[in-house]
């Protein structure tokens, strides 16, 4: 299976960990090539987080990730909907999806 193109968005302060870039379009490689050891062909959010960590996360990964998921307090929206409605880490990514990460961890 060939790669996927997805749009990633970071806001609420999460962008500070990603060169202050709030929106970017990325092309994901074939999953077999990126993570051959897991024997999967379909990208899910779980693998996307690994890819983000390896390719985009510039500093202090612990402020974005915790275990194999995002740090509690960071909201994830899949095509503008709460990821909690879509299986969270198990959500299977589709070509053209928009995944948004909003940090709630800053004060108000």
């Amino acid at each position, binding site marked *: 299976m060939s790669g996927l193109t997805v749009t990633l968005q970071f806001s609420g302060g999460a962008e500070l960990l990603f060169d202050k870039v709030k929106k970017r379009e990325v092309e994901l490689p074939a999953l077999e090539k990126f993570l051959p050891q897991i024997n999967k062909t379909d990208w899910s959010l779980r693998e996307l987080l690994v890819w983000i960590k390896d390719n985009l996360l510039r500093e202090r990964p612990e*402020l974005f990730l915790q275990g194999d998921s995002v740090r509690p307090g960071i909201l994830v929206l899949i095509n503008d909907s709460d990821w909690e409605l879509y299986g969270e880490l198990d959500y299977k990514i589709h070509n053209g999806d928009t995944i948004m990460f909003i940090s709630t*961890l800053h*004060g*108000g």
Partner: protein
Amino acid sequence: MPVLCRTGCGKKAVLKRPKTGDALCKECFYHAFEAEIHYTITKGRLFNNGDSVAIAASGGKDSTVLAHVMKTLNQRYKYGLNLMLLSIDEGITGYRDDSLETVKQNRDDYEMPLKILSYKDLYGWTMDEIVAQIGRKNNCTFCGVFRRQALDRGAAMLNVKCIATGHNADDIAETVLMNVLRGDIARLKRCTSISTGSEGTIPRVKPLKYTYEKEIVMYAHYKKLVYFSTECVFAPNAYRGHARALLKDMEKIRPSCIMDIIYSGETMAVKEDITLPTQRICIRCKFVSSQEVCKACVLLEGLNKGLPRLGIGKSSKAKKMLEEYNAKQGHTTIKETMQYLDNNYTNIGNIENCLSNDKLCKSRVCKVSKNNTQLINISGKCNNGHCSGQCKNNQFSKDKENKSNTKINILLEQYELSETSNNVTVGPSHANILNATDLDNLYPDQDEDSCSGTCGKMGSMQIGF
């Protein structure tokens, strides 16, 4: 396969509510979100028709959503409130200067008048300057103490009935947890109240008390509200950071824990034999305090005397510092030192004397009093009877006149009293703890010795309201 809105409206759900677990569509979410805040406001009788209300605005998510919702509800349910925005400029380059731009945007968007008060105008010091003196370790103490008083002053100037703050459910649960972790019974008792402030203070109300942070952020996102989200450039508050992380971890597993912690805080009873500090009026600035001299005055005194750590930590420490200071100045007794400091203070409100006092004039205080009539107005206002009557300070200044104590004696008590100010009737170890926290407990409300906003939040990254 899209999930449908639980209300059966037929639309696609966009979020799962943490409080109830319900999947709702945008419109039903807005409705539930706003209705709950309306319920909180009416049940808690936070406002009366015709009240003027200041919304403490930092430009962050909570105060931005609060301003938006307050405006919406005020129109929808005809509260008849006169809403305005009140912001404090702590003077933190790269943080508050940017967030104030967001507040100005709020002012234009919501058509509310905006008042900005700065630490520089009120106290003669910006946070940048304070941090240059004190370093990054205890700066949140200064910021928190000064902000609390600055909000009171701002509210008095605006002549409002109360101040609405953007504290959300997560913030309150975090504060309950923090107060338990610190054994701070006085604050634990009051931190969950929806409306705080007794006679002499302008009440603070928290319309978002039962509103989850997640929902506030989602609401702001879907409504496309512009808010400011950068962490404060100054010190992390590691302890609070850990408490926050713990709470977020638990919330992930069981979202209702936030409401449960608040409920626990609300229903917890404090043993009757624990006497809590009583509130009175600071003899210096006339604002509410639990000691003769409020923490803001002690901190400011320390800054202006080049003893920036005065007022941080135990009262015994402050006493020791004053002794050292007095040795340096060639004064032989604490009494003399206090007299010296006190004379110095008197000059703050007295422009004529300002220049005649050699060492004092080198401090910022003099510059301030010369340049800044605002400060003088504040302290002079109530005594001079110029205040509108809204300001409750009037009655207290009378109280003060009735006391025959001189300021020096009171200050002496303040600093030498630490061994006798034991107002606790529990075991000795407890007595010590409470005594040690005396100086930290000068304010009636939220926990001011740590940043209530951004600080201490992101990881151990960590001002707001």
